[in-house]
C-alpha cells in the first residue's frame, strides 16, 4: 500500500460511505468519521503511516480554512443587530459548561478523594466547541435562519472564551497544587487571544490591500490558500490560537471591501475533498480503546457539558432577548468537541504531571463521543428549529 493508493481510497470510500449512510439519514460528517474508523488502524488498516504523519499539517490547513470562512459571517454592516445575542449566548453557554462540569466533577473527586483541580481544568475544556463539524452540517443541509446565523458566530468566537477559561483554570490548578496563583498564565491566555486577533487582523488588512494584484481565478485560489497557510503557520510559530487568527483574518477581509467575498467563494469551490479527507483521517485517529478508561468522570463530563451548553445558551438567549427557537436549540447544536479541548488536555498533561494523563484521557474519550454524536445533535437541533428544509 502506498500513500497515493491510500489517499485515493480515502476519497472514494468517503464518497461511497456518505452516499450509503445518507439512506439512513446520517449527516456526511458522521459518515466520513465512520468510514475513517473502518479504514483506520483498528479495522482495515488502509491508512499509511505517511498519511498519518502528514495529517497534522493537513488538519491545521483545514481548520484554518474553516475558521477563515467563519470570519465571513461577521459583516459589520449587518451584524450590529445580532452581536449582543452572540456575545451573551456564547459566554453563558461556555460558562455553563465550565461551571456545571467542574461542579459535578468536584463533587465526584471529593467523594473518591483525589485533588479537585483536575475538575476545574476539565470544566474549562468542556467550554470549547469544534466549528468544523457544525459548519459542515449547516452546509450539507443548506440550513438557514436565525439559529444558523447565531450558531455560525457563536462557534467562531466561543473558542476565545474557552482559551481564557482554560488559562484561568490552569492557573487555579497550579495555585491549588503549589499554592501560588500565577497571573502570568492568565496573561499568557489573554496574549494567545489578542496575539491571534492582531496577527489575523494585520494579515487580513495587508492581504486585502495586496489583492488588487490578483487577476485570474487561478491566482485567486493560490493567493487565498497561500494566505491561509501562511497565517496558520505564523500563528503556530508565535504560539497563538490558529482558529482565532484565521477567523480574524476572514473578518477583516470581509469588511474591507465588498468584492472580497470572492476569497471565500473560491475556497468553497475546492474545499470539499479537503473536508472529506480531514474527517476521514479524524475518524481513523479515533481511539475507541480509550472509551473504557473514561469511567464515571467521563460520563459526568458528557452529561453536564451537554446540560451546561443547552441551558447556558437558553439563559444567554433570554438575557439578550434572542428569538425563542434559537435559544432553545442553540445549546444542543454546540455539542461537537475536538481540537481545542484536546489542546487544553495537552497543556494540562505537561502542567500537571500527576493528573495530566487522567485529564487528557477524559477529554480524548469524551471527544470521541461528541465527535460522533455531535453532528447528529446539530442536525437535529437545526431541524427542530425549522431551519433545514424538509428535503428528506
Amino acid at each position, binding site marked *: *500500500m*502506498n*500513500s*497515493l*493508493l*491510500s*489517499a*485515493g*481510497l*480515502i*476519497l*472514494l470510500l*468517503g*464518497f461511497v460511505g456518505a*452516499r450509503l449512510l445518507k439512506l439512513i439519514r446520517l449527516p456526511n460528517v458522521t459518515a466520513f468519521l465512520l468510514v475513517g474508523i473502518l479504514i483506520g488502524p483498528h479495522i482495515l488498516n488502509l491508512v499509511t503511516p*505517511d498519511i498519518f504523519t*502528514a495529517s497534522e*499539517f493537513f488538519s491545521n490547513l483545514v481548520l484554518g480554512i474553516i475558521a477563515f470562512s467563519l470570519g465571513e459571517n461577521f459583516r459589520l454592516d449587518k451584524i450590529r443587530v445580532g452581536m449582543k445575542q452572540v456575545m451573551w449566548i456564547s459566554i453563558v453557554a461556555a460558562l455553563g459548561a465550565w461551571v456545571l462540569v467542574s461542579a459535578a466533577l468536584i463533587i465526584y473527586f471529593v467523594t473518591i478523594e483525589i485533588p479537585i483541580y483536575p475538575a476545574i481544568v476539565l470544566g474549562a475544556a468542556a467550554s470549547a466547541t469544534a466549528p468544523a463539524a457544525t459548519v459542515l452540517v449547516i452546509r450539507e443541509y443548506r440550513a438557514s435562519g436565525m439559529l444558523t446565523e447565531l450558531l455560525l458566530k457563536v462557534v467562531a468566537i466561543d473558542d476565545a472564551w474557552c482559551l481564557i477559561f482554560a488559562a484561568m483554570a490552569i492557573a487555579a490548578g497550579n495555585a491549588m497544587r503549589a499554592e501560588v496563583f500565577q497571573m502570568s498564565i492568565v496573561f499568557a491566555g489573554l496574549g494567545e487571544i489578542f496575539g491571534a486577533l492582531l496577527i489575523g487582523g494585520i494579515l487580513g488588512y495587508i492581504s486585502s490591500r495586496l489583492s488588487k494584484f490578483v487577476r485570474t481565478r*487561478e*491566482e485567486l*485560489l*493560490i493567493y487565498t*490558500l497561500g494566505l491561509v497557510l501562511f497565517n496558520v503557520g505564523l500563528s503556530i510559530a508565535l504560539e497563538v490560537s490558529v482558529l482565532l487568527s484565521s477567523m480574524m483574518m476572514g473578518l477583516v477581509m470581509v469588511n474591507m471591501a465588498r468584492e472580497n467575498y470572492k476569497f471565500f467563494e473560491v475556497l468553497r*469551490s*475546492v474545499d*470539499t*475533498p479537503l473536508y*472529506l479527507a480531514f474527517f476521514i483521517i479524524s475518524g481513523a485517529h479515533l481511539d475507541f480503546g480509550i472509551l473504557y478508561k473514561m469511567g464515571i468522570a467521563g460520563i459526568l463530563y458528557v452529561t453536564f457539558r451537554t446540560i451546561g451548553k443547552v441551558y447556558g445558551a437558553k439563559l444567554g438567549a433570554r438575557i439578550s432577548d434572542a428569538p425563542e427557537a434559537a435559544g432553545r436549540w442553540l445549546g444542543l447544536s454546540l455539542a461537537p468537541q475536538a481540537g481545542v479541548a484536546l489542546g487544553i488536555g495537552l497543556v494540562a498533561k505537561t502542567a500537571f504531571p500527576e493528573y495530566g494523563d487522567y485529564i487528557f484521557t477524559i477529554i480524548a474519550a469524551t471527544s470521541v463521543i461528541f465527535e460522533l454524536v455531535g453532528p447528529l445533535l446539530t442536525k437535529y437541533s437545526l431541524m427542530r428549529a425549522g431551519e433545514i428544509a424538509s428535503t428528506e
Partner: protein
Amino acid sequence: MDVSDFISNFVLGMIAFALGSNFTVKQLRSAGKPVLWISILEAGFAWILVTLVMILYFVIKHLPIHPALVLGAAAAATAPAATVMVIREYRATGPVTEMLMRVVAIDDAWCLLFSALAIASANALTLGIFNTHVVMEAFFEIFAALILGGILGALLYFVSRFIVTREEVLVATVGFILLAVGLSMRLRLSPLLTNIAFGIFVANIAKNSELFFAALREVDSVLFLAFFVLVGANLELDIVPRIGVMGLLYIIFRVVGKILGVKLGAWISGAGSNIGNYLGWGLVPQAGVALGVALSAKALYPEYGDIIFTTITATTVIYELVGPIFAKYGLQKAGEI
C-alpha cells in the same frame, strides 16, 4: 514516500489524465495517423541520433559502447508537465497545440519500448544473448497500463451515475486519479500511461466527460504551482558544471532529433507544414521517464551508471529551464498564442 513525492506523482497523474481527453475517437479519425507518425519519428530520431553520437563519443574515449545504447533511449521521452503549463498559461489553441498534447502523451510509450530494446541490445553486446523477454516485458507493461486505465475508466463510468453535485465530481475525479497512480505504482506499471489510458477511456465512454476534466481545471493551479516549485527546489544545479562534452552532445542531438523527426512525421502523414515546423519545439522538456531509464541503466551497469546518471540529471536541469521558453516560442511561431 515524502510529501514532495506524493505531490509530484499526483500532479503527473492529473496531467496525464487531462492529456487523455485529447484522444477521442472522433478526433483520432483525422488525427490518428499524424499522431502515430510524428510521435514515433520524433522519439525514434532522438533515440537514434543521440545513440549514434554517444557511440561515437564512447569509441573515441575507448569505452565500451553498451552504455551509450541505453543513454540514447532516455532521449526519446518527453515530459508533458511543462509543455501543458505553457499551453494553459497562454491559452494556446489550434491544430499544433492539439497535436502537441497528443504527441507528448504517447511518446512515453515509445520511450518504454525503445529503452527495452536498448537494454536488450546492450545485453546482446555484453553477454551475447538478445533477451527477447525484456522487450516482451515492455510491451506487457504498456498493455497492462492500458488495461488498468480502462478498468478504472469503466469504474468511474459506473460510479458517475451516482454523482449528483459538483463537489462530488471533484472528489470522485481526484480520488480516481490517486487510485490510478497508486495502483500503477503498486503493480510497477507506468503511472503516466495508466492515467493517459484512464483519461482516454473517460473521454470516450462517459457522457458528460467534460465535467471531470473541468472539475480538475478548477483546482489544479495550486498543485501545479507547488509541483514546479518543488521541481525547482529539487533541481541539482551543482551537477550542471559536470555536464561535460557528453552532456552537451546529448542536449543538442536530442533536440535536433525531435525537430527533424516531427518534420518528417508531419510530411509523411500530411499533417501540414505548421505542425511540421513548430511542434518539435514543444518537445524539449525531459524529466521523470528519462530519469527512470537512467536509474535502470545505473542498476544494469554500475561501473558506468554514474556517468549516465549525471548526464541525464544535468541535461534534465537544463531542459527543464529552457523547455518552457522553447515551447512558447514554437507555439507563438505557429500563431496559436
